[in-house]
Structure formats: structure tokens, C-alpha cells
């Protein structure tokens, strides 16, 4: 009887052992599954984070794009303002030129049908510049060029003050290089030689041209 019970118990024990092994296997499998699930969860969280980052990046890009757009808008506005100002200035200048041209055309129009008053005005304007040219040669009277002068101008200036007209002839060399005032000072200081050729001065003659008093 004990043998039968032993055999039964041993069978039970074996069955339990097999059951235990099976359960262990199942446990291992379950653990594996748990690990897989954990890995999946991690991957999911990573994916979520990545998606969030991408979303944030897109958001930032959108914001920067908005800012750039605004900047471009402002630049375009400024450019348009400057261009409009330039155009306005150009328009003003063109209008002024147009007015001038209209005036000139207005002056030219009557001349074509030969209106009398503008013609007379033109003649007067043409006469005006001629008179000074006629008057200019008259004061330039020819004088006796008895001395070589440094300047090529008609009027010979005094070599000392370089302002007044040289109208004193020094003899014997006949150089005409001093004005009245400098001649006086020249004589008072006892300088008895010509400034040009250093010749001895024996006589000083005041000469008068057509324009002198």
C-alpha cells in the first residue's frame, strides 16, 4: 500500500515538476514579452519626442519665415517709398524742364510768325554783348615799349609794389618799371640803380599815356 502511495506521490511530484518547468518557461516568455513591450514603449517615447522636436522645428521655421516675410515687406515698403520720392523728384524736374521748354517754345513760337516785340527784344539782347567788346579795346592804348617786361599783359605793373602802373622811365637805360609812389620811395632811399639792369640812374621821367590823367 505504501508502495502504491509512493508511486502515486512520485507521479504527482513528477507532474508538479513538469508543471513547474512549464510555468517557468511561460514566465520566461512573459518576461521576454515584457521586455519587448518596454522596448516598444521606449521606441514610442523616442518617436514621440522626435515628432515633438520636428513639430517645434517646424513651428520655429514658420515663425522665422513670418519674420522674414515681415522684414521683406518692410524693405519693400521702404524701397517703394524711396522710389516714389525719386519719381516725385523726377516728375518735378521734368515739369520744370517742361515749363522751361514751354517758355522757350513760347519765345520761339512768336518768332516764327515774326511778332514785333519779341524780335525787338532779341535784337536788343544781341546788341548788348557787342557793346562791351567794342568798349574793351579803347582803354588799351598803345604805349612805347621801351623796356622788356616780364608780364605779357598790356598794362605794365610796377616791379616793386606790383599794383600800380609803371609810368616812370629811368635814364640812361630807359627802363619803365616803377610807379609814381615807388619811384619816390626809390629815390628817397638813395637807390641810384635800375631794378632791372642795375644801371646807374641819372634822370627819372614821368610819362603819360592816353589813359593817364
Amino acid at each position, binding site marked *: 500500500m505504501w508502495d502504491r502511495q509512493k508511486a502515486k506521490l512520485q507521479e504527482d511530484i513528477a507532474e508538479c515538476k513538469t508543471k513547474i518547468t512549464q510555468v517557468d518557461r511561460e514566465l520566461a516568455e512573459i518576461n521576454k514579452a515584457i521586455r519587448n513591450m518596454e522596448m516598444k514603449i521606449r521606441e514610442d517615447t523616442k518617436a514621440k519626442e522626435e515628432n515633438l522636436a520636428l513639430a517645434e522645428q517646424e513651428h520655429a521655421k514658420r515663425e522665422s519665415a513670418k519674420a522674414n516675410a515681415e522684414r521683406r515687406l518692410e524693405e519693400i515698403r521702404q524701397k517703394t517709398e524711396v522710389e516714389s520720392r525719386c519719381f516725385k523728384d523726377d516728375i518735378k524736374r521734368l515739369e520744370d524742364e517742361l515749363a522751361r521748354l514751354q517758355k522757350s517754345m513760347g519765345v520761339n513760337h512768336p518768332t516764327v510768325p515774326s511778332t514785333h516785340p519779341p524780335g525787338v527784344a532779341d535784337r536788343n539782347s544781341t546788341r548788348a554783348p557787342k557793346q562791351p567788346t567794342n568798349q574793351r579795346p579803347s582803354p588799351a592804348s598803345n604805349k612805347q615799349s621801351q623796356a622788356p617786361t616780364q608780364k605779357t599783359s598790356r598794362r605794365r605793373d610796377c*616791379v*616793386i*609794389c*606790383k*599794383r600800380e602802373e609803371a609810368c616812370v622811365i629811368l635814364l640812361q637805360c630807359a627802363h619803365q*618799371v616803377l610807379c*609814381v*609812389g*615807388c619811384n619816390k*620811395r*626809390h629815390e628817397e*632811399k638813395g*637807390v641810384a*640803380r635800375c*631794378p*632791372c639792369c*642795375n644801371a646807374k640812374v641819372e*634822370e*627819372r*621821367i*614821368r610819362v*603819360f599815356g592816353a589813359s593817364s*590823367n
Partner: protein
Amino acid sequence: MARGENNTGAHGSGNVPPPATAASTAAGTAAASGKQQARGAGAEGQSVVRRLQSELMALMMGGDPGVSAFPEGDNIFSWVGTIAGSAATAYEGTSYRLSLAFPGEYPYKPPKVRFETPCFHPNVDAHGNICLDILQDKWSSAYDVRTILLSIQSLLGEPNNDSPLNTQAAALWPNQDEFRKMVEKLYKPTA
């Protein structure tokens, strides 16, 4: 009427008003240029200032190569001039600075000209004094700053070795290569 002096005297009395107007204009210009120091009092001082101003204008407008001058500071009676050594001479490529001091009796008296830059030349001494006849006994009222500078520039290439201030330079002048070396050795331009 044969004597011109009597004629000059007679007409001189007739020309009394123009000098008066000239004096008044001179006074006006003197008042206008108050900053300048006029040594000579009266008409002569103003005439000297006006002459120097006209010479300055002529120098600034005229384009003489190698020479230039300008008043030093506010004193129109003290100028600083610059002379460049002429080509084909021992002084080619050099630039010398000079000082010109005008007396109150200019242009009846010559200005005092001196080399500021040391110059190795038979007619220039160690202190920069220049032995040039037109600056001494041969001075003429017709000379001005431009002619003085041009004469000194010409003197650099054509010295007068008969009356040297620098005997070493006069003795060395025949040997132009050695002379050039000495010129370059003693050349110290003032910045």
C-alpha cells in the same frame, strides 16, 4: 619843357589826391588784416604786406616745378620755402627746406635766406647761410620770392668755387661721384 624833372614836379602836384585814396585803401586793408604782424608802421608796412600777399598768390597760382614757399604761421614776414634738387645734378632727388625772413624795407632790402636742411655745398656754410650775390650787394627790387628760390636752385648745380664758404665742398666739387656720396651722407631731411 626839355627837362623832365620839372614836368614831373608839376604833374606830381596834380597827382596828390590819388595817393590819399591809396592811403585810405591801405588803411582799410590793414584794418581787414589785423592778425598779421606789420613791422613797418604807416604806408610802407601796408605796402610790404600787400606785396608779400600778391607774391604768395602768384606762387600758389604759378606752377614752377621744384620750388614752393608759404608763410610760417600767421607772420607774413617769415616764410618757409622748399627747393627740390635739379635733375642731372649731384642734388637730384633731394628736397631742401629754407627759411626766409623779410625786412620791413622789403623789397628795397633783400630777405635773409638760410638753409634749414643741412646742405653740402661750396657756397653754403655749416649753419645754412648762403653766399649769393643777389641776396647781398647785387640785390634788386625787381627780385621776388620766386626768383630767389629759382636762383638758389640754380646755385645748387652751378656753385661759385672762387669764394667758398665750405672749402671741403669746393675742393671736392671736381670729383662729382665723391661729391654725390658726401651729399647723400650729409643729407638729413627735416620731417
